[in-house]
């Protein structure tokens, strides 16, 4: 199983905070996971389209969409950060 977490505008637009799912067949990277989610859920596809600029964390470490995934990973997707 993997966990996919959404924050800020992406959480509000998708209406989801966290998904728990088996790592889908053929999905080996964050980019492929996003593609898979877009195919499987229209609301998520719309939320990603409305948030084209995104940041990624894998297991609480900043990563790129090219980062590889394995079972047990926690993936977080969010818009560019605005703290400080």
């Amino acid at each position, binding site marked *: 199983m993997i966990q996919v977490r959404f*924050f*800020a505008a992406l959480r509000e637009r998708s209406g989801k905070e966290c998904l728990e799912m088996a790592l889908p067949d053929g999905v080996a990277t964050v980019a492929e996971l996003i593609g898979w989610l877009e195919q499987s859920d229209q609301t998520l596809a719309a939320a990603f389209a409305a948030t084209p600029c995104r940041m990624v964390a894998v297991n*609480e470490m*900043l990563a790129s969409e090219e980062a590889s995934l394995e079972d047990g990973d926690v993936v977080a997707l969010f*818009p560019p*950060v*605005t703290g*400080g």
Partner: protein
Amino acid sequence: MKTCIAVQDAPLNATAPQQWLRDEGVSGAIVLFSGHVRDEDGRVEALHLEHYPGMTERFLGTIVERAGQRWHLNGAWVVHRVGTMRQGDEIVQVAVSAEHRQAAFEACAYIMDILKTRAPFWKKELIDGSWHWVEARERDALAAAAWLAGEPGHEPR
């Protein structure tokens, strides 16, 4: 180097960083950045800050560690507020102590610039009764990129 890193809902104590960093003369310099909620010409009625609990604290620790590798620091304090705030409230305190001012000025700016563009916080503003997410600024990204261009290893993750 002693460090204090926290994320809290409660209002920040304005005098705490200096008190905590004072070290009876070991450090000749303490530099403090204190960030406050701007009212943007009276438009912003409130500000709400969300973060990624766990990742935020860990990442702030990484930034401070990197700063400690780059400059000789005696202490570093990073405390960020989350939740709902009003104009004028203190949002963030970044304070560092060092033997000399140059290291303290630069390390404080470095921590703040990386925090703004990498640490998982998101701001929302209440304007005319409705909440709007704040967009990231290009100039903040450029400021962080300028520091990271000089870093030998990977950028902080």
